[in-house]
């Protein structure tokens, strides 16, 4: 299972969810769907119609920028980060 690390601003929307999550999936999209199965509504916060990652959501797989189709290995570490944007 890959390790998915979630940002504080996302955790604030889902009380009780941990920052570090072990999730099964072969792609980023599958990991997010896996998260959504245990945390209903999580996918809607990260993915928009397309489907694609929301414009200001960044995902890195083992340190590399990723999209929903990016492959994930069982030992991968996946960071979900909100973009540095706003005002």
């Amino acid at each position: 299972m890959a390790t998915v690390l979630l940002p504080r601003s996302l955790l604030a929307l889902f009380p009780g969810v941990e920052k570090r999550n072990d999730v099964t999936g072969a792609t980023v999209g599958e990991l997010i769907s896996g998260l959504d199965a245990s945390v209903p509504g999580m996918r809607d916060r990260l993915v928009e119609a397309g489907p694609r990652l929301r414009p200001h959501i960044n995902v890195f797989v083992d340190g590399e920028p990723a999209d929903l189709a990016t492959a994930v290995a069982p030992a991968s570490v996946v960071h979900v980060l909100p973009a540095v944007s706003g005002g």
Partner: protein
Amino acid sequence: MPKKVRLLVGTKKGAFILDSDEARRDWSVTGPVCEGWPVHDLIVEPESGAILAAAGSPWFGPAIWRSEDGGSSWTHSSAGLTYGDGADPITTVWSLATTPDGGIFAGVEPAGLFRSDDGGATWRHIEGLTNHPTRPTWGPGAGGLILHTIVPHPSDTDRTWVGISAVGVFETRDGGDSWVPRNVGVRAEFNPENRFPETGQCVHKFAMAAGEPETLYQRNHCGVYRSDDGSETWQEITGDLPTDFGFSMVTHPRDADTAWLIPLSAPDQGRYMPDAHAAVWRTHDRGASWICSDAGLPTHDAFLSVLREAMARDTLDPVGITFGTSTGQLWHSSDEGRSWRMITDTLPEIWGVEAVVVEA
């Protein structure tokens, strides 16, 4: 039973809740709630008393937030709030309204209408509006292509009106299956080749007259209007108002002849209160004449703007009127708009104000 007046204020940086007693002189401020998400509109579900907030996060997308404990804790959902993977993503929720049969409508950007029959947990697309034959011609106003106003008929569940910028008013009489543009008599001055098109009018806000479901007052980009026939035709009532332009309008909870609005300078002249002189205007004769009220408001150097959802009235007697500015000031009148006091001038940019009266 003592009552409490509650103001629900949506801002660019979260929602705030202000409480006062019936005197409406001293207010407490709580917030921000909804995790600081931009909030356009807040309403209270009549049966449950739950607060609902229409929001859209630049990072996490659109959602309807819900609190069942007066604003202390919140949940959020956008389940079903999509046009599908082949269509444009929904960026934010602009407007909410409850229906007489316990449903909730949500208006979104890009413009469309959704309905929930489970308190906002799940949503379904009202496809009849999106599939209207004029849809390919719809164009955005300066605020985007947004469905910002929803007025359900108070007893006929098949009838609902919506307002879309810059498209106009639509009405359904069959529960949302089909929609008819209702813009006859409304000017579109920005379209000089056709000042009275079927659609393309820039409605900014409209509201139903108390006890008269066929009477609607409309604040438009190009003037102010009233319809006495359920929106089939509109008569201009701009009269001697200082400008054609403005965003907000509210109607009296018991008197069908009374409404309030805030004129703003022309779109290309700043969109603030004319001559930087703050004033709220009201009519007591269905728009035949307008009365200016500036008592307590700044009469010079007031470069204030009030957006379309940022004005509200409560249901007490006398009625309280509140408006919020795009620079974070909240003003209140507890005498039906005759005099004004500032509640606070330190909120974020205010987008929406709702006033409710609850048991203390």
